[in-house]
């Protein structure tokens, strides 16, 4: 017993001595393994440091973009609702309302690749392959008229792409350009007259406080620790747990625009609670396309058949739908996400 304990002690001491203590520090933490660094160190510098090997064409990018990006950024990267526009805006930076896009503003292409790879698609980040990221990046360049439609982007030619606004930035110069802000201020007779030139109430864009007042009336109840835990909700229809789980994963593709659950709100797309079997175009408070509304008024409902057709290719099911999602390619995904939606009743 004592022998092995001694051994352990010796080993520990040796470890500590060989570790960071050598640098005269606290010896806390442990050395990061190469695999761990590789997993997290994803950033790409403007000079291409960190770019993975791979390639992607504009043509493939068009499809990939439609599948993963267009629901928020639009089929042509022109942006949906308040989601960022990724294309257009050239020569607008000195205008009253400049349009800042990858093409008109971003100085380095590395930034686009880096951001798409680590943070997109919204709600399912880091799910794209490196080649898919090259495809999407190529398609965004194409949408900005920076490359031709037969262009293929790769780690080999990455630095050859010229970004139009690469020279459009200066390092912070407030200390010199605004040196006159460092001056003894005026205290009396600082101006002859003062006129009101603009009023916020005239513009009238300040949010009003309905929600807060409502909650003030319904005073919050103190938490009651003795209250029994709520009963789990029992579904009337037995749902397949494995399929549900898969459906939840598939639903990540929908999440940027659609919400389900108790706190769900209408977003870019309507709330989907209880949508399976519900009348089409009837979620309260959502502004549907005219086409979708008309379909609902004809009495159509989201039965399995309609839902499958819509999710397979939304624009084929209804040409003028607002939903700019390319569709789910796999039947199994549609089945799974339908099951998942069934689990969210009203």
């Amino acid at each position, binding site marked *: 017993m004592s022998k092995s304990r001694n051994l352990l002690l010796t080993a520990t001491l040796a470890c500590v001595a060989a570790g960071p203590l050598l640098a005269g520090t606290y010896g806390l933490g*442990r050395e990061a393994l190469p695999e761990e660094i590789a997993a997290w160190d994803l950033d790409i510098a403007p000079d291409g440091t960190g770019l993975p090997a791979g390639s992607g064409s504009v043509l493939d990018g068009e499809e990939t973009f439609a599948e993963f990006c267009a629901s928020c950024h639009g089929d042509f990267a022109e942006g949906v609702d308040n989601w960022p526009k990724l294309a257009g805006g050239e020569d607008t930076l000195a205008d009253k309302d400049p349009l800042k896009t990858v093409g008109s503003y971003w100085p380095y292409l590395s930034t686009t690749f880096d951001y798409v790879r680590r943070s997109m698609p919204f709600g399912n980040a880091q799910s794209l392959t490196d080649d898919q990221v090259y495809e999407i990046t190529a398609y965004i360049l194409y949408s900005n008229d920076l490359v031709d439609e037969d262009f293929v982007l790769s780690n080999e030619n990455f630095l050859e792409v010229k970004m139009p606004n690469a020279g459009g930035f200066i390092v912070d110069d407030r200390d010199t350009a605004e040196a006159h802000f460092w001056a003894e201020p005026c205290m*009396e007779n600082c101006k002859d007259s003062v006129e009101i030139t603009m009023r916020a109430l005239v513009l009238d864009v300040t949010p009003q406080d309905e929600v807060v007042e409502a909650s003030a009336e319904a*005073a919050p109840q103190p938490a009651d620790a003795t209250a029994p835990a709520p009963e789990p909700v029992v579904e009337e229809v037995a749902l397949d747990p494995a399929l549900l789980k898969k459906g939840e994963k598939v639903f990540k593709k929908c999440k940027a625009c659609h919400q389900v659950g108790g706190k769900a709100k209408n977003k870019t797309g309507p709330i989907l609670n209880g949508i399976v079997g519900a009348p089409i175009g009837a979620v309260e408070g959502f502004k549907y396309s005219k086409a979708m509304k008309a379909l609902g008024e004809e009495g159509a409902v989201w039965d399995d058949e309609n839902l499958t057709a819509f999710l397979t290719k939304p624009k084929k099911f209804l040409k003028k739908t607002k939903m700019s999602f390319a569709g789910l390619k796999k039947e199994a995904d549609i089945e799974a996400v339908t099951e998942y939606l069934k689990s969210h009743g009203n």
Partner: protein
Amino acid sequence: MSNEVKGSQPSRRAFLKGAAAVGGSLAGGGAAMAATPDPLIVEKQPWAQGTGDGVDATPYGLPIQYESDVVRRNVEWLTADTISSINFTPIHALDGTITPQGCAFERHHSGAIDMRKDDFRLMINGLVDTPLVFTYEDLERFPRENRTFFLECAANTGMEWAGAQLNGAQFTHGMIHNMEYTGVSLRTLLNEAGVKPEGKWVYVEGADASSNGRSIPLEKALDDCMIAFKANGEALRKEHGYPARLIVPGWEGNLWVKWMRRIEVTDQPIESREETSKYTDTLEDGTSRKWTWVMDAKSVVTSPSPQAPIKHGKGPMVITGLAWSGRGAITRVDVSKDGGKTWETARLANPGQPMALTRFYLDTTWDGEEMLLQSRAMDESGYVQPTKAMLRETRGENSIYHNNCIQTWWVKSDGEAENVEVS
């Protein structure tokens, strides 16, 4: 239970109204005389007879129900959804300088994530002698610091570049909070890994899907940055980066990465999305400033303001507000009641502390006339908060970020206030 005190509503308002009328007629004659006895005094009140809540009624207390309007608020039309969005601190209703975490504004790029301390890992890699991984427990074993700093989003007041837009200090200036942080200096952690001589920058990133990576010059990282795990004495709230976030004193809030996971020492800036496409300031000619990290000196009158009108009529009153500077301590705040024609120097509640909020008061008398209320901050570098006209002259109207202009509230004779722009 039955004799416990519940909120009751005696006719307090009616009484006060009467008192105010009397007070008005006696203006300048000292304390007013009540016409009838105050029922709150002469009648036995339920709270004076029954009992209140026992201990443990709320194991972690929230503000009393009468303060339920002192909450963060969102401006829905600003962003596409609430996951990548911002809300605003109710600065119009707070006093002192410390911002409670529960109402301190939030800014997320992929939503506030839920991470257990056990799942926290902080990596230091890149141009270091030994790349290291720390657990949360490791962080707590390093020497600790306690320091108070403001965090201002670079976009605070950003909607006001083109003119007076949002009607309330919360909305115009509420992307700010000020907390006392407990944590470990970044210098300590970097020394632990050993920075190589080629290292000139650190690239910092969070564990959320946005990662919110930013490049910071090594000089700043070794100067006063911290990895904090407590704020105002308690664990960081989830929305403020639990279990650990970066503190970058005086510099724009976007650099204060939440849910910290990695620090990479590099020889060049990474030029991530957050430091190229965003958080760069476009000037009138279309060129843009980058690396505008420092927050310029700024101040705002928090009360009276549109959400905090004067309700008491003329007579003694307190004008109050906040001032701060990323270049050091606030040394002076001036207040103008006439839109900037004349100024008087306000009283600082406490001497300014570097890169922390400073509370100012102007104890004054209101004559019941309209006011165009402004405040103007000065910091220890001698910088004076500029007017919006001065800012537009050097920057144009498209900067979005770093709008530190002098704010004007038009206080009308009925005590209501409005956000206005003046000549």
